[in-house]
């Protein structure tokens, strides 16, 4: 069953940045790309469960603040060790200046 939830307003995230979004006891990361698209992944790094919201977005890469593991946040693909397991991604839609995420 689809479950679209409002995560934030579009301006809550700077360009090429991310914020943390907590919902139903889970943590997500919502991204705004350099070309103004929005994406969502799990909020914790698959390596050691560190919050990605403290990391650095470079183009379409999120770098984990703990050991510099990297993921492509569009696909969740792990790009640099020690991050080896992909991140889960979630559909995102933008409506009336609000960002919605389809969570479970």
């Amino acid at each position, binding site marked *: 069953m689809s479950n679209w939830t409002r995560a934030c307003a579009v301006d809550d995230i700077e360009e090429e940045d991310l914020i943390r979004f907590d919902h139903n006891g889970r943590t997500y990361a919502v991204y705004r790309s350099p070309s103004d698209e929005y994406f969502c992944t799990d909020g914790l790094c698959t390596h050691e469960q560190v919050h990605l919201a403290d990391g650095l977005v470079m183009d379409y890469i999120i770098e984990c603040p703990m050991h510099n593991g990297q993921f492509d946040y569009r696909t969740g693909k792990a790009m640099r*060790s020690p991050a080896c397991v992909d991140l889960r991604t979630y559909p995102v839609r933008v409506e009336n200046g609000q960002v919605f995420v389809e969570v479970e």
Partner: protein
Amino acid sequence: MTDEAPRFRDYSLTGIDARPGFEPGQWYSSPIPRKRLKQLMRRSDRKGLINNGLWIGLTVVTGCLLVATWGSWWALPAAFVYGIFYGSGADSRWHECGHGTVFKTRWLNNVFYHLASFMSLKNPYLWRWSHTRHHTDTIVVGRDPEIAFPRPPSILGMFTNLLYLRSGLKEFDRMIRLSLGRLTDDEKQYLIESERPPAFWTSRVHLAVHLSVVGVSIWTQSWLPLMLIGLPSFYGSWLHHLLAATQHAGLAEDLPDHRLNSRTVYLNPFFSFIYSNMNYHVEHHMYPMVPFYTLPELHEEIKNDCPPAYSSSIAAYREMIPAMLRQRRDPNHFVRRPLPEQANPTPHYVRPQFVYAT
């Protein structure tokens, strides 16, 4: 009163003191506004290339000087300077590129990472994972594989290692072992399965290059090839080891606060260049995302929340050596770094069997 010998802890990752470390969220970070932190974390290919280009350029030029002066007494100062760029310069660059923070472009980090790893005799795969653990569990006994001075610390070992005699020979031994596809129990703790084959193959390549250099030396009946590749990792790395020994020696173990288990030491510009600003060690551990060229700015940002930096390496050694001497008798002794009055307190933490007394 008892005459019982003090019990020193088991620093192996599979021994009796091996227990879970701290949760990532337990480690203290000095507060920095997100906007500022983003500026500090920014990578620059230009800055990375200027620094590393200069380093490679100076290594090549001084290497040519060594070749040109070989056979005369001038070869001694030439080797001295070349060795510093090769042996000491590579060790810090291995570290920086391992974090992937030097260049914005990923492949540039990788190229310099592999080159500097070879020059400092390190296996790039094994060390990436060992260093990952070092950042997760900095100076946590039974967790951190990179505790350079386990108690009781060896002062003699520290000085003989200026010529890389302790850890460099260990790296050679490791190179041979990994070439044969063998890992120790400790290494198995942190090197994941999928990274083992590339680790083994890289060691084989490193070993083949070193053996070829030995072969060329024998064939030409000259030490020169070995003085250019291989031996400078030993005779030239003293500056790196001299500076790096101050990172954590004599400080607290099992404490999730890098302000109290690491040192920030002011250095002259030449030493900072060779050492890639790793003298800002508290800052590096607290925010490993910040590239080395921005660490002085990060230091300015958080210094009021940290113990005072040491004015020089000599100042750090003045504190370290007596503390290490005392640790040879008393395993519970360590240097308590003073936090400034306005600093945030060290976090409350619980890890069984050891209590940090403030």
